[in-house]
């Protein structure tokens, strides 16, 4: 039954079997009071419970009593059956355990018995082995003893063998060298000879060796001769050459001579490169005239390939190429870099390897070769680099077009970058710094070119503006004439032409600004991050502040101001060649520059170039004040020119008339109407560009009433004494007293930047001229009356343009006064009649 149970349990589930076993173990352990550590866990609280059936202190009596007391019958029944079941399972468990233990014990006994047998066999085999080992040791000792003397003999024999082989090498050397010579395996020959040389030297007292040595010498001499020949021929590449030099050096050739030869040979080859470049330049020279006009980006792609070999031979052979074979500068520099600079680097590198950096061997070291060699190298490199630089400079100078700056910058960058290789090879050389100098020079030149380009652009756009101004002016002239007297007509005639003024101004300033920006962008390429020379101190500091800011931007602004001033000054020689509208426009432009544009441009520049000002630079305020000064000058000049135009009309009108014998005035003279019209159109023109400005407060309806008061009372009073011949002093006295009370008028006082001030200036000039002309004439009665009428008419219309109408009053007053004074028969016209005539006009 036990086996049956265990089998069934094992077959059912091995895991549960194990688990069950563990549980059984645990229960047993618990029963015997052994916990996992194998100690008796006596004092566990629950085990003290006498009712715990598994506890050690179980009291059956108590338990039974308890059950009986607590449980019902059915529960007791259940409890009883449960207990029976448990007891049964415990019994079976115990049986199983006992059985297992027994089995294990039996198998252990079997194993121990088997081991005992095996060990005995092993002990016998070990004994046998140790006996064998002893025998081997004995034999070996015996053999080495016998072989001792033979070994020494063999060593000696092998020594003799090597010696013989060396001797054979020596004897064969001449033949071998000859063969090498035939095969041109010079390196092998030299190395062979070197190996033999010291030996031959040592044993040269023996005749046989001496013969060999002599032979060798002769052969080597021949070889050296050939090497020199090869060296001189110079057809070979740099690598061959350096090999050649190395061999010669090993043959104890004098190093200095070799250096010279090497360098002169290298020079001839580099010179060929340079000549190629020069031929390129020369060829480009005559062709530069027509091609300079071409877009530099349209580069001839095939030309360099086809042209370069032919160029170096003779530029005359292919005349067809000359117009198209002009390389752009990038290609030129590229060619220079690839041919000259890389060859130069190669030469430097091989030279240094040969003469400077070689491990110093006994006899060579004493001659101080590296110093001598590097001195030679430096002067060599310097002289060649100078020539190269002069070529590059010439080429750069030919780069005149300002169209595409990136090409130049890239070329310069490449140029500069390749020179860095030289600086790495030759740390102390001045070549890279010279190269940087060239780059700097080119950058400076570039800035100059940009400045002149900007200037010519400015002048061109001024010419455009001038043309634009000239075109509509003609149409105005046509339209303004028929507008007879009505202010509306003339002002609308002015408007046809005038609206283009603000547009012209804005387009002019915008195009200039754009041009400046694009130039700045082009120049900015010089300082781009990926350009190697941009981190040179010049490009960080001076280029930005002195070059771009001062040399380009500030100079340009100054140029603008200066050329504006030039317009004012040169007008004297060239007459009214500058249209007044242009003066006005430029004045506004300069004013705009003063208020905003200059600071904007400079801020833009400073931001783009991160200018750090080590040296004092032109401050914005200085430029602004210069611009303001120019604006002021232009405006003053505008006032003068316009004033003089009107003055001229007035003057002609006064001078060409016979004032003594004129008829009684019926009309306002046409000239006065024309003056008013012109003034109105000037008013419109100025109003387009300048603000209104402030006037002095004047009485509400000042146009008529004031004038009537003035002409009836004051004027009458003024020349009343003239025709009552009392004392001659009175006239002067009166006019002087009058002058005492009126302010002195400064005719050419500076004009302010507003419309009213401008017109005031123009009117002042015109009226003053009128006055002066009147004083030169003699008037009859009706002449005076005509002047009266004209002045009244002017008064009616001109007051509205000026800042202080009293000014107009005063000047007109003076004119009428002077006319009266110069009148043979001063009888003034009735004020009412004057008014009627003027109204009618």
């Amino acid at each position, binding site marked *: 039954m036990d086996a049956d149970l265990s089998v069934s349990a094992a077959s059912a589930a091995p895991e549960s079997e194990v688990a069950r076993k563990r549980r059984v173990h645990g229960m047993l352990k618990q029963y015997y009071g052994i916990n996992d550590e194998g100690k008796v866990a006596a004092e566990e609280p629950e085990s003290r419970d006498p009712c715990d059936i598994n506890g050690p202190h179980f009291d059956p009596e108590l338990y039974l009593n308890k059950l009986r007391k607590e449980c019902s019958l059915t529960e007791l029944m259940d409890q009883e059956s449960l207990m029976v079941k448990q007891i049964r399972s415990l019994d079976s468990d115990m049986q199983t355990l006992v059985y297992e233990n027994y089995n294990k014990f039996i198998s252990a006994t079997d194993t121990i018995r088997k081991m005992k047998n095996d060990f005995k066999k092993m002990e016998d085999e070990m004994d046998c082995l140790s006996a064998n080992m002893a025998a081997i040791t004995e034999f070996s000792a015996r053999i080495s003893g016998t072989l001792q003397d033979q070994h020494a003999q063999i060593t000696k024999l092998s020594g003799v063998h090597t010696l013989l082989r060396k001797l054979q090498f020596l004897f064969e050397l001449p033949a071998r060298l000859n063969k090498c010579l035939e095969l041109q395996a010079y390196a092998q020959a030299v190395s062979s000879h070197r190996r033999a040389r010291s030996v031959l030297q040592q044993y040269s007292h023996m005749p046989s060796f001496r013969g060999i040595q002599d032979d060798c010498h002769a052969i080597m001499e021949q070889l050296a001769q050939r090497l020199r020949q090869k060296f001189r021929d110079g057809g070979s590449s740099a690598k061959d050459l350096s090999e050649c030099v190395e061999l010669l050096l090993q043959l104890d050739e004098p190093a200095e001579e070799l250096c010279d030869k090497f360098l002169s040979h290298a020079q001839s080859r580099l010179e060929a490169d340079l000549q190629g470049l020069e031929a390129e330049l020369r060829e480009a020279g005559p062709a530069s005239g027509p091609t300079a006009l071409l877009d530099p980006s349209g580069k001839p792609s095939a030309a360099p390939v086809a042209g370069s070999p032919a160029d170096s031979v003779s530029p005359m052979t292919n005349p067809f190429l000359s117009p198209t074979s002009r390389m752009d500068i990038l290609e030129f520099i590229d060619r220079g870099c690839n041919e000259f600079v890389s060859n130069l680097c190669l030469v430097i590198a091989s030279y240094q390897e040969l003469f400077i950096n070689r491990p110093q061997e006994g006899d060579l070291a004493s001659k101080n070769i590296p110093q001598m060699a590097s001195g030679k190298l430096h002067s060599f490199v310097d002289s060649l680099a100078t020539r190269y630089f002069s070529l590059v400079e010439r080429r750069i100078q030919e780069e005149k077009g300002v169209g595409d700056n990136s090409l130049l910058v890239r070329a310069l960058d490449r140029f500069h970058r390749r020179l860095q290789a030289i600086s790495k090879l030759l740390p102390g050389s001045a070549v890279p710094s010279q190269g940087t100098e060239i780059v700097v020079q080119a950058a400076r030149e570039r800035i100059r070119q940009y400045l002149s380009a900007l200037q010519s652009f400015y002048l061109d756009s001024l010419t455009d503006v001038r043309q634009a101004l000239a075109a509509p002016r003609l149409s105005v002239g046509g339209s303004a004439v028929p507008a007879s007297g009505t202010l509306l007509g003339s002002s609308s005639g002015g408007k046809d032409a005038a609206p283009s003024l603000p547009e012209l101004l804005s387009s002019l300033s915008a195009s200039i600004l754009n041009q400046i920006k694009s130039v700045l962008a082009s120049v900015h390429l010089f300082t781009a991050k990926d350009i190697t020379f941009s981190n040179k101190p010049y490009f960080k500091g001076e280029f930005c502040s002195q070059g771009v800011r001062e040399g380009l931007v500030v100079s340009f602004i100054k140029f603008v101001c200066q050329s504006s001033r030039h317009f*004012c*000054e040169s*007008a*004297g*020689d*060239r*007459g*009214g060649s500058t249209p007044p509208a242009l003066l006005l426009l430029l004045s506004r432009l300069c004013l705009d520059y003063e208020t905003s544009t200059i600071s904007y441009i400079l801020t833009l520049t400073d931001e783009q170039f991160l200018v750090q000002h080590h040296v004092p630079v032109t401050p914005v305020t200085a430029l602004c004040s210069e611009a303001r000064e120019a604006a002021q000058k232009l405006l*003053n*000049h505008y006032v*003068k*020119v316009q004033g*003089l*135009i009107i*003055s*001229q009309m*007035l*003057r002609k009108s006064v001078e*060409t008339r016979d004032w*003594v*014998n004129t008829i009684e005035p019926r009309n306002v003279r046409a000239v006065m109407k024309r003056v008013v019209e012109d003034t109105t159109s000037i008013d419109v023109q100025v109003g387009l560009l300048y603000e209104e400005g402030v006037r002095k407060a004047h009485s509400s309806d000042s146009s008529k009433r004031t004038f009537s008061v003035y002409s009836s009372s004051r004027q009458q009073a003024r020349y009343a004494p*003239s025709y009552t*011949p009392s004392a*001659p*002093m009175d006239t*002067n006295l009166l*006019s*002087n007293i009058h*002058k005492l009370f009126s302010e*002195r008028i*400064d*005719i*050419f006082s500076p004009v302010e930047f507003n419309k009213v001030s401008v017109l005031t200036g123009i009117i002042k000039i015109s009226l*003053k*001229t009128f006055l*002066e*002309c009147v*004083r030169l004439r*003699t008037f*009859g009665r009706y002449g005076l009356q005509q002047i009266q009428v004209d002045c009244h008419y002017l008064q009616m219309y001109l007051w509205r343009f000026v800042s202080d109408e009293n000014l107009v009053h005063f000047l007109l007053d003076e004119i009428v006064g002077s006319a009266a*004074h*110069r*009148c*043979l028969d001063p009888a003034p016209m009735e004020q009412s009649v004057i008014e009627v005539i003027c109204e009618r006009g």
Partner: protein
Amino acid sequence: MEDDAPVIYGLEFQARALTAQTAETDAIRFLVGTQSLKFDNQIHIIDFDDENNIINKSVLLHQVGEIWHMSASPADKSVLTTCYNTTSDSRVATSAAVWRMPKEFESGTHESPDDSSNNPQALELLCHLDNAAQGNMACVLWEPMGDGKRLVSLADNHVALWDLEASSTKATVSSSATLEGKGQLKFTSGKWSPHHNCTQLATANDTAIRGWDLRSMSQNFCQQRGLSANPSQPRRAAQDPSRCLWGEKKNSTRLLFFPRVWSVRYNHSHDQLVLTGSSDSRVILSNMVSISSEPFGHLADEDDLSDGEDNHQEEKSKEPLQDSIIATYEEHEDSVYAVEWSCADPWLFASLSYDGRLVINRVPRALKYRILL
């Protein structure tokens, strides 16, 4: 170092004509002619006593008309010419005449102001320069440094060279020329060059300057001035046409600073000193080194002026930067129509404004010493 205050003299009438008494080299004497349509015009002889800053005046009557231009003979102190307006039956014509001052005036010793002002004496007419055919006389010029025998008159568009007889009582036209051109051209001013044996004459009409060769009476150069719109017809005066021209060119820019210049005079001895009178009632003394025949600060040598033409080229190369306004005189209250250097004292000048105010001023002492030393 304070400068002497200007001396001011007032005339009763309006006046435009002013001249220095050319033949007088000892006393500082100016002649002023008045303009009045209604009263008898006068010629005021102004003697300036340099040491005491006192003015002595004498008045002569000039009854024929108002005086527009006046010039004094370089040879005879008492002889002068005037251009004057006459009005007859509502026709105004300008003519010219040669006059002689009464004996007692010519030397300037006549000092009885009460006497003369109360009872002014009249000028003695020597001869008329009869020019009815030629039009209105603009100005009459004496041959500089000559013997007072030759005159040039400018009338409308005619130039005429006159020969005076020994007694100056008869004048005959020896040659004449006409200015031809578009429109109605009129001479406004002229000046006789003292160089080249006095064969050169410079004239101004409107804004053009012309040079004439008096031997052939032909025009030998013409410079259309750029500032054609300037109505003020600056009255040019120069010792020498080329210098005049040159000065003109240079001045065209400066003219903007001298608005409406009516009269320009070079100092006779130091030709970098230029005096201008203008209608803004200012007199401006400027230092035009650029047109000077001698470097600034160099001792003036009057004889050097003879080779002014040759210096001319060198002058161009000189820096005109030192051109500057030395002083502005604002004593006038009306337009200044005439300025004149004194013949006796090269550092003294007079200016005349329309209201009849004559002001005598001096070159600032500091500048004077800088030029001399």
